[in-house]
């Protein structure tokens, strides 16, 4: 007599994977961009 309803788990934003990759790219680039900031010509 038990009625089971399957539930779907999902992230709220479909772009999560795309954004995750963007974030990783951002962190990879960040150290370089910080060092470049010390050079006023490249700001």
């Amino acid at each position, binding site marked *: 007599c038990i009625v089971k309803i*399957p*539930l779907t*788990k999902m992230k*709220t*934003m479909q772009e999560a994977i795309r954004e*995750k990759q963007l974030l990783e790219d951002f962190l990879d680039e960040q150290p370089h961009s910080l060092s470049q900031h010390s050079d006023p010509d490249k700001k």
Partner: protein
Amino acid sequence: FSSHQLKNFQNAVYFGTITIGTPPQEFQVNFDTGSSDLWVPSVDCQSPSCSKHKRFDPQKSTTFQPLNQKIELVYGSGSMKGVLGSDTIQIGNLVIVNQIFGLSQNQSSGVLEQVPYDGILGLAYPSLAIQGTTPVFDNLKNREVISEPVFAFYLSSRPENISTVMFGGVDHTYHKGKLQWIPVTQARFWQVAMSSMTMNGNVVGCSQGCQAVVDTGTSLLVGPTHLVTDILKLINPNPILNDEQMLSCDAINSLPTLLLTINGIVYPVPPDYYIQRFSERICFISFQGGTEILKNLGTSETWILGDVFLRLYFSVYDRGNNRIGLAPAA
């Protein structure tokens, strides 16, 4: 890249299918133990939040009856305004005729706009429902559509369709060990008394005893902001991305287990459950402040045990005996 965006990524939600009307119109709903009303968007709703979701068309249902009573419902994630109506609801093979439900005509943007479900099906007590309405589970119980007045949740970490809500009984293959029963302290929310919260032997919350609301509609572990701030400082002294909830995943192995004591039983929540992996290197701490706004629960301190806790512990909601059963999920 704002930290606000990152927080949204981790709000995993669970939803299932119901139908409303004759012939049936299908909707995805969040089965929410933290509220008591059922609502779905109406075809009249022009909010951007509604346009992204399935909308109920009363004119296409031969069993719909309008009630012309205006309603407004406010959730942690947003709000809706609309009207009440009544129609046949079907959940799996459970059928309720003349179930009163809300039809939203105006919905807030933000979380309700982004979530993949259309509406909410509340499973808390009738005292929390719109006055004069009977919640879905009370109709299932009172009209003897189900044999036992219980329902239960198994929430899996995996995205496949293996998470389940069950009505009318408990399938014990979903949990390990014996169910531990905890009396409900106030028949409104699914609310129990908690006696302590510790980490590494330190009391991190609930020092004078507190109330814990078991809520499938909340993603994280939510508590008073000042206590959550202290917990985040304790477990994350070196936050990244200027966000106290973000930490390097390398830190997970050194983090303490959270111990919740409820009705004399200790419920451990290890770091790999309260920390969610956002990417290979970035992790997210699933604690959030904000329960200080819940001042009417008969206590000065309230915690909400959301999906983070419920993925670890299979939960049974027993309306016949006003108690919650918890056991480690299988």
